[in-house]
């Protein structure tokens, strides 16, 4: 049975057009000057139990708005939305029992209390049996070693520790579906890895459906088999990650610090790369404002190592960095028809 069914879902906000300055602010008090923002604009998809779905897109794409509709906080402007056969905003309390939610920017834990007290409060709210509660915490302790944190006040935790506790909290009542809204935002690599393996393990052992929004393509690669890309409230892509993976997995950006940061050097670089690797080389060059020269390479066509070796032996390079493609670039490439 389908767990989440969404059809032609839209959410439009009416926003007051604010004017500048004191005069504008006073004018806004009496203004009837609204504009409509289509945060979510006719999206459709179905999610089956046990799936891990990456719900991605650039800032302001409508990801959080969709999550808020699925969790029953926001009422859709139009369209159909059912979770487990029920409409979330009409059955908020009941739906909350089968859902877990983590907002990466906020915490559901009590700021001034030791971690374990928050867990105990949540245990009461969700009416979790003592036996299940103990089992659950035991399992988390095995996976990520939480026990040491139990007696610490939440406000004294590091961001990563707090996130581990928040995720633990959202799984306490063994929900059918967990929404993770930017769970790895601002975290370092090692804690990210910990969180990813925790999510995978929970999905594997309990068959919990997980909807993940993130900016980090690493999260998506590590966790999801299916991704949904949205931008400006519309679905750009919904399908197997492999196809997308081939796309953004193949691209790498070589960031170069050239000694002569001039237009002439850039032109020379462009020309010599074309001579060396031919016209269909899949290399694009751009200069950034902070004096880096970005060489983006499609590894399916040209090997990064070859380009690096060639540049190093022909130009004076003072520093080199290799970065993976960003979310914004993926979206741009999808727009350009890369997935058609």
């Amino acid at each position: 049975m389908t767990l989440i069914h969404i059809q032609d879902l839209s959410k439009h906000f009416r926003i007051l057009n604010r004017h500048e300055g004191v005069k504008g602010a006073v004018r806004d008090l009496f203004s009837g000057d609204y504009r409509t923002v289509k945060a979510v604009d006719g999206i459709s998809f179905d999610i089956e139990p046990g799936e891990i779905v990456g719900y991605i897109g650039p800032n302001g794409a409508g990801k959080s708005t969709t999550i808020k509709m699925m969790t029953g906080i926001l009422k859709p402007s139009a369209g159909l939305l059912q979770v487990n056969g029920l409409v979330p905003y009409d059955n908020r309390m009941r739906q909350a029992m089968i859902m877990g939610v983590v907002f990466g920017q906020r915490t559901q834990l009590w700021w001034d209390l030791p971690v374990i007290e928050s867990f105990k409060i949540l245990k009461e709210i969700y009416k979790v049996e003592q036996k299940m509660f103990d089992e659950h915490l035991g399992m988390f302790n095995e996976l990520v070693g939480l026990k040491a944190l139990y007696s610490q006040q939440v406000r004294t935790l590091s961001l990563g520790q707090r996130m581990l506790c928040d995720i633990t909290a959202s799984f306490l009542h063994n929900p059918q579906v967990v929404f993770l809204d930017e769970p790895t935002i601002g975290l370092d690599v090692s804690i990210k890895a910990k969180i990813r393996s925790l999510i995978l393990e929970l999905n594997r052992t309990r068959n919990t459906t997980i909807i993940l929004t993130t900016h980090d393509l690493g999260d998506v690669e590590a966790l999801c088999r299916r991704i949904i890309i949205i931008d400006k409230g519309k679905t750009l892509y919904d399908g197997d990650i492999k196809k997308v993976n081939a796309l953004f997995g193949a691209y790498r950006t070589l960031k170069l610090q050239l000694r002569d940061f001039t237009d002439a050097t850039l032109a020379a670089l462009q020309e010599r790369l074309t001579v060396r690797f031919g016209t269909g080389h899949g290399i694009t060059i751009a200069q950034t404002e902070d004096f880096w020269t970005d060489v983006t390479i499609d590894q399916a066509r040209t090997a990064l190592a070859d380009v690096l070796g060639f540049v190093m032996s022909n130009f004076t390079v003072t520093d080199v960095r290799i970065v993976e493609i960003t979310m914004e670039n993926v979206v741009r490439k999808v727009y350009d028809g890369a997935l058609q």
Partner: protein
Amino acid sequence: MRGYLAFVRGAIMVGVVYRLGFLFTILGNIIYMIIAYFLWRSIYAGREILNGLTFDQALLYIALGSTIFILLKTYTDWGMAQEIRDGTISVYLTKPIDYQLYNLFTTIGFASTSILTVSLPTVIMLIFVFRIHFAIGAGYLFFPVSLLLAFIINFNMDYAVGLSAFYTESIWGISTTKEIIVSVLSGALLPLQFFPAAIQQILMVLPFQAMFFTPLMMVTKPDQEVGVFLQMLAVQAAWAAVTYIASRLLYSQAIKVLRVAGG
């Protein structure tokens, strides 16, 4: 219900977690009591009775009034406005809890810590330091119920003010206005007997007197007929019900602003 009691427990723990703050609350109240004692001593200046109250009754009224004021002063409206403004309310809306009851029980938890820090020391001081003469009567028995009803009325008003943050985004003006109105019209600042008779009559039909004046009357004049107390409780209960229903209705309207216009 068990779930909501967890909020009471949590709030009590938050209330006592900062030991120094806890200590200063106790100290601050003791200083206030001493000042109030000498102030009202000089107001009476040898006179036996003012506006039908003896010095002991007036001091009792003022001292207990201030402890009730602190008991009711839980900043629920400020906390809610903060949560509504910064969007933390979303976190509560994803939980299987009623937002009003969640706030009520959290507020009860916070208030219970101030029973420990303020109410108890005040009563001890009144009995052992100022050696106030307490009249004997049935009023004391009704007092706890009356106090609980006063607490609920006050909470409902705070809650309604907090909800206004959905519309205004800033509740500073509304909240301060409410505070001034409540402290004057409820008899928290001054016994209602000190107001002109005509104004007293108006005040008696407003909900504010049910928040301070009624419970205070039960302890300053405990030797009245049982029927009088029951009537007082009935009026309080009616106001508690009216404010509860009104704030519920306001919530169902206010939440639409969030759900339709976005968080």
